[in-house]
């Protein structure tokens, strides 16, 4: 095997990170809006008793440094040193606390190149970057690898917590969950695909805070999902009328009854976790515990400048030999 040489791509990671990883489903899914056995109209659930324990699961990722690997074949293999953290906010009675914060560091290279793991000391901490190879060798591939890993970690955590029989809200669609019977609820903040016909979607615009649409089934790929829209806060005068709308979904394996229960529960309780605009620019959709969790997770990733300097030092040592 040829000697692999890792060199720094000296531009700071931010310069290339403006692109978004495309997580949206392109193909149109099959949707059935008549599953709950009620008319297509606004549902205002009677106020449910809040489950004793709620969890909000989320993750963050960060590119610490981009690299270019030289395997003496003449190819340009792109890669990165990246960090990802996932964790949960546990809300029990009136105490919200961070739980199960897990930090992972990865050394990812494209073109199916598996590098040696790297580990080095920064202060009292040892940073261990696990090696990961992604098959493609396009510029976005290592980043997608990091994103996938974060999503998979989120899903793992959500599954661990859901087995506690508590109510778990995970960030984003449920694509990465493995179990069919999962009761974890996915919370989708960005409305990219309405899934509903224009006339049906009209109902979403009419929702008031604490109200939801009836359930609808999205059939696509491996898993079917029950989904519903909830409004968590009234839009301000200048906001468009779907500001404050969340789409939630749960695996259909969880059962219709469970789905209805979760739908009513979310309509009753999620609005109390919505923040005001001054607290979070992504409010109200970005719920307060989730926003706080993201800050905490980013904090746990460590200081980006210190880590980047440690990586530079390490690469200097490796290439000096």
């Amino acid at each position, binding site marked *: 095997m040829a000697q692999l040489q890792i060199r720094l791509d000296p531009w700071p990671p931010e310069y290339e990170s403006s692109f978004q990883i495309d997580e949206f489903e392109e193909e149109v899914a099959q949707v059935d809006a008549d599953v709950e056995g009620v008319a297509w109209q606004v549902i205002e659930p009677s106020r449910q008793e809040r489950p004793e324990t709620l969890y909000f699961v989320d993750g963050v990722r960060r590119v610490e440094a981009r690299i270019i690997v030289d395997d003496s074949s003449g190819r340009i293999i792109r890669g990165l040193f990246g960090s990802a953290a996932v964790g949960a906010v546990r809300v029990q009675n009136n*105490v*919200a606390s961070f739980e199960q914060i897990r930090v992972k560091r990865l050394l990812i290279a494209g073109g199916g190149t598996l590098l040696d793991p790297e580990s080095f000391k920064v202060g009292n901490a040892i940073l261990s970057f696990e090696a990961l190879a992604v098959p493609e060798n396009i510029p976005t591939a290592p980043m997608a690898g990091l994103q996938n890993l974060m999503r998979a970690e989120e899903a793992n955590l959500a599954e661990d917590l859901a087995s506690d029989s508590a109510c778990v809200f995970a960030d984003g669609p449920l694509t990465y969950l493995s179990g069919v019977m999962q009761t974890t609820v996915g919370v989708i903040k960005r409305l990219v695909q309405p899934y509903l016909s224009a006339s049906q979607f009209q109902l979403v615009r009419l929702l008031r805070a604490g109200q939801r649409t009836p359930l609808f089934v999205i059939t696509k790929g491996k898993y079917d999902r029950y989904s519903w829209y909830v409004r968590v806060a009234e839009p301000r005068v200048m906001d468009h009328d779907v500001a404050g709308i969340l789409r939630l979904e749960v695996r259909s394996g969880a059962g219709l009854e469970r789905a209805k229960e979760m739908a009513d529960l979310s309509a009753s309780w999620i609005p109390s976790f919505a923040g005001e605009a001054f607290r979070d620019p992504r409010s109200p959709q970005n719920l*307060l515990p989730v926003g706080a969790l993201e800050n905490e997770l980013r904090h746990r990733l460590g200081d980006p400048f210190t880590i980047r300097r440690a990586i530079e030092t390490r690469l200097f040592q490796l290439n000096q030999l």
Partner: protein
Amino acid sequence: MSAEIGKVLGTEDAQPLDFWIAVAPDQLVQLDDVVFVKRDLPGGGHVSLYGIVDIMKARHEGARFNSDVFLSEEGILPLGRSTVAHVSVTRVEPEIFVPPLPGLSVFRAAGVDRDQALFFDSMRRKFPLGLSRDGEVVYGNFEFLDGSRGAHINISGISGVATKTTYATFLLYGLFHSGILEDDVTNTRAIIFNVKGEDLLFLDQSNSARRPETDRDYARLGLVPEAFSSVGIFAPVKMHEQVLLPDTGSRQEGVTAFCWTIEEFCRERYLRFLFAEADDETSHLAAVIASVEAALARENDFSNYESFDDLVDFICASVVHWATAATGTIAAFERRLRASAFRVGHLIKGRVSDAETHRIDWKREQVTVVDIHNLHDRAKRFVVGVVLRRMFEDKEKTGTARPLVFVVLDELNKYAPRDGWSPIKEVLLDISERGRSLGVILMGAQQTASEVERRVVGNCAFRVVGRLDLAEASRDEYRFLSAASRARAGILKPGSMIVHQPEIPTSLLVQFPFPAWATRVSEVLKRPSADPFKGF
């Protein structure tokens, strides 16, 4: 055993003389806790930094808005809590001034470590100042009190809540009973002027309001709670009475009525103390007073003067022969002499059958209480001036510093005011400047140190404050207090004082136990007396 309470934090600068620590969530740390941290040095060896917690803060971590606290309490926003404490370094051992490193463990100092932190280990002779908040003894270095390296105590605080004289008497009790005076204890004396109320007239009576925990506190201090055993109480004679009775309200028995004879007044040249008001400073007047004093001292026969008024009349008639001065000055002299005579005259008697028994003999008992609370201000000044000068002259004659004499005097601002000159101020200045070598230790107190002569306060090795008015606390006289102590001086409870002494670079909060002696008539422990109906 010293226990870990937290770690040096790295979000604030740690400096060799002050640093912040993050307090472990399961630890109780409070202001005044004594802590230490050990730091290894490159190339071997280590340095220990000892200090006292003087500021504490708690805050939410991760909160950006003040209203986040409501969301946190509703369980919507997860926030961390942190408690941090600021440490003022009191001692660095060995003296290598390096900052403690962030992450180092900080320990609460106990036992030997605490003694090191507060320099108790290097005090060869120490006396109890009180107890710290955590119930440990706080010592003062006796070498800074007995004159060998310094002397005098000054106490400031608001009347009524600052418990200044009670603290002074507690210190005396500690000095007399802790064994620090060794063999000198039998001959060491204290003169206490009782300027307000009758609080100090019961020093020899046990306190009935004493609680069991008081005994524990005394035991911690190494003291047995008892009343003062050797107390002489002197009160001025009653005005307008032929019989010489002490002018006290709640206590009569065991109180000696004091007065002076006209002969004594003239021979000892006490006249100047009748002109003790701070504004009586014109040199012309002083010259007249000196001349009159000299003339009176030359007199042989005092039998003509039945009362002080007779003497005043004689002086007024003769002054023009004794002194040469402008008519205005003579008139001023007469006016003031008569005004004083009206207030003080009853203390100076023409014929007293047994004058010796009515003299304030400060050597007779260990503690002499001179009650002047009932007297007019002019008379108070006269008594204080005369007693202090007598005592000071006696000490000068013996020529040795030992045994010591302690003088407790409240309302120093009256006797040694910042502005003006008076004969008493001169005596007090003499005591504060030369008393150190003569073995006269002034325990002065006042509401506001800013109104007392700078040199009197400045010569005190021990500076104490009780509850202070906050405007007063911010004056220069209290620069020895840290900003945090200054703020706390405004909320000190009775029984708590902040003490500063030369060796310890920071002021310490001490609590002193409830007095074991009665401080008012209602507290006097009634001894089970014999059958009250026995006489029938």
